[in-house]
């Protein structure tokens, strides 16, 4: 009997393998050392990537999860190692990213005694996890991991944390992995009610100016094809949220643009002109709605949503279609009339022209000397692969890259949406790249954000992940500066940066690097970067004080979207 017993640490690793984890990200330390010791024996079955900071590990796991649709896994020690995961957990929680975070913990007999590197991780992670558990006995390890993976990936995905005391890692136990297939207190989603489909279909059929808003729920529910069929048949114009980008190819005839504070002009403005609003897998974030009191008040709202807590949370709906949108979209497509909405669609196209002349021409084909962020993305579009992944950080570059990147495939958008985590992009791009070395991963980042996690250049060096890093450098915390200019009387309080020589830093990590300051050099540099075999760091010095438009200022209504 004793021969079949293995260490708890081996159970951890073999459980991860049983869950088909391929790559995990982490950082060792005292309380997780037995697991690191076990990893040494399984390195041919499970790849571990050593990041340079635990925050890097969790953002990498997020990037991996977003592009792969699988559960991202990260590993950290107790105390500071574990608390460094918290920002990423909060990010994954608000953006519904499936993660399993495993942290070491002091031995069970030391719990609550302020032992070295002891932190109450269950308490700390509670508000930013879908579920968490502390494991104090070796026999509880495998069931906890099985349950964790099931919870992370099912229903509305999210991060879970397993805190494993050191004694459980070193004790011996039997290993018999039983995957979790469900349990009584957790319902992954509601079955779709046919009456809701009938009501929704009736509302859609009677609509003169129907309008679809789609979000990441479409991607998470693998409902991209169902969305496309629904739009093909219904002829309804459709706009994307930030995280929904990629769910529908942007050359689809019904696609009208992006929603939100820095989205497109027509999609925001016409939200208050539609008669039926069909929200699919999106949660009416305040950055999408602006002032709720003046948001789509004229519209009858249909909400296709998995999470019952998101229904009627901010925007009241007339028909809630609870459940998996992959099923509900298909049922709805069968129940609606085939239609065209040419006149209504033309209103979107007309306003799009206004945006093109008022904003896009300046952004994409500037006549002034200074380079714009938009023209960089425009050139990237011309050379990128169709399935290239765009990873962005947070700020002006994020909004510009999102606005102008030509999304053609699903799971090509990786950004910190709900939480707005600066420092997200570089490690997330690494994680996205490690899922598939052959896929083009383009990391667009600002000079502020990159310095929050710049140490991950070391992980890129060590893994040889061929990430293409585009640093849009305006020597400012640009989005904050834009707000200071617009709403704080140009008082540029602590937003200007004295920056290091980024190219030298990249080169110090043995990453091929180039700096572009002139328009004439940009095209060739982008081309060189994208064909380079290996990681590449391209710094583009852009206009210092450029702004992102259109914009819906805080407290304004979607119809008050400004072009300048």
């Amino acid at each position: 009997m004793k021969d079949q017993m293995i260490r708890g640490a081996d159970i951890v690793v073999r459980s991860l393998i049983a869950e088909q984890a391929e790559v995990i990200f982490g950082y060792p330390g005292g309380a997780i050392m037995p697991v690191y010791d076990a990893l040494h024996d399984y390195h041919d079955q499970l790849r571990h990537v050593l990041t340079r900071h635990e925050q890097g590990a969790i953002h990498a796991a997020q990037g991996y999860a977003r592009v792969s649709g699988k559960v991202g896994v990260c590993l950290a020690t107790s105390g500071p190692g574990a608390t460094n995961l918290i920002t990423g957990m909060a990010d994954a929680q608000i953006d519904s990213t499936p993660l399993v975070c495993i942290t070491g913990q002091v031995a069970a007999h030391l719990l609550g005694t302020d032992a070295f590197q002891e932190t109450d991780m269950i308490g700390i992670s509670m508000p930013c996890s879908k579920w968490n558990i502390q494991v104090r006995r070796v026999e509880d390890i495998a069931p906890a991991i099985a349950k964790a993976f099931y919870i992370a990936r099912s229903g509305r995905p999210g991060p879970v944390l397993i805190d494993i005391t050191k004694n459980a890692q070193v004790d011996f136990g039997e290993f018999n992995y039983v995957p979790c297939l469900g349990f009584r207190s957790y319902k992954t989603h509601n079955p779709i009610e046919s009456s809701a489909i009938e009501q929704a279909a009736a509302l859609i059929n009677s609509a003169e100016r129907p309008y679809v808003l789609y979000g990441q729920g479409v991607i998470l529910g693998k409902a991209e094809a169902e969305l496309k069929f629904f739009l093909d048949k219904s002829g309804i114009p459709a706009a994307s949220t930030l995280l929904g980008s990629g769910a529908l190819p942007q050359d689809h005839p019904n696609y009208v643009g992006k929603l939100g504070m820095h989205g497109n002009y027509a999609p925001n403005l016409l939200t208050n002109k539609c008669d039926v609003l069909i929200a699919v897998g999106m949660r009416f974030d305040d950055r999408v709605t602006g002032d709720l009191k003046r948001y789509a008040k004229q519209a009858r709202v249909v909400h296709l949503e998995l999470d019952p807590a998101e229904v009627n949370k901010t925007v009241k709906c007339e028909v809630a279609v609870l459940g998996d949108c992959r099923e509900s979209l298909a049922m709805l497509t069968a129940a609606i009339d085939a239609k065209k909405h040419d006149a209504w669609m033309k209103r979107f196209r007309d306003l799009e022209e206004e945006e093109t002349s008022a904003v896009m021409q300046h952004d994409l084909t500037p006549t002034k000397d200074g380079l714009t962020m938009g023209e960089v993305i425009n050139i990237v579009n011309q050379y990128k692969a169709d399935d290239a992944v765009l990873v962005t950080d947070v700020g002006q570059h994020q909004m510009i890259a999102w606005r102008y990147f030509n999304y053609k495939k699903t799971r090509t958008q990786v950004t910190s949406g709900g939480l707005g985590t600066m420092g997200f992009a570089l490690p997330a791009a690494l994680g996205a790249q490690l899922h598939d070395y052959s896929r083009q991963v383009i990391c667009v980042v600002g000079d502020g954000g990159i310095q929050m996690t710049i140490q991950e250049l070391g992980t890129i060096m060590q893994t040889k992940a061929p990430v293409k890093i585009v640093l849009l450098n305006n020597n400012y915390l640009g989005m904050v500066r834009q707000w200071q200019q617009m709403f704080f009387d140009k008082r540029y309080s602590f937003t200007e940066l004295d920056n290091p020589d980024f190219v030298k830093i990249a080169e110090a990590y043995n990453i091929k690097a180039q700096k572009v300051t002139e328009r004439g050099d940009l095209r060739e540099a982008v081309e060189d970067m994208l064909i380079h075999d290996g990681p590449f760091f391209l710094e583009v010095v852009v206009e210092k004080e450029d702004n992102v438009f259109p914009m819906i200022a805080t407290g304004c209504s979607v119809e008050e979207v400004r072009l300048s």
Partner: protein
Amino acid sequence: MKRYTIFVITENFIGILNRITIIFTRRGININALTASESRLEGIHRITIEVTATEETVIQLVNQIEKIIDVIKAFYHEDEGVVYQELALYKIPVSKLDGGLEKIIRQHGARIISAEPEFVVLELTGHKEQTQELLEILKEYGLLEFARSGRVAVAKRMLTIDSFVK
């Protein structure tokens, strides 16, 4: 704003109460009273929370609570929809006892559950209005200590927790 009773049926899992209460904390909503106990079924706990809020807020709280992985079911009722009781204890110094107290005890249906050389402890169960009324009276009697439990309640609706546990 109205008074509501939220019922939560949960697995008996460490930290579940914490997960529930942070939903209130995050929205800045005060819990008037909270009680937790085992239910009729082994391994399943029920938590009763009394809160004063708008119905819209209560619906969102209940949705968020029900989203907790180890919560089996959460629902809410107005006061009219539940039968509820609270228990209050009053500690009074013996020196203040006089003939008047007997009348008060009889009138309110309170009882003496402990008599010590220096003090007696009265007990009254009922709605908050009743225990509060007695509290106001006993303040005249040099009340030393007062404690009141949270609400324990059962719903009037004919649904049993077995229907949620499958």
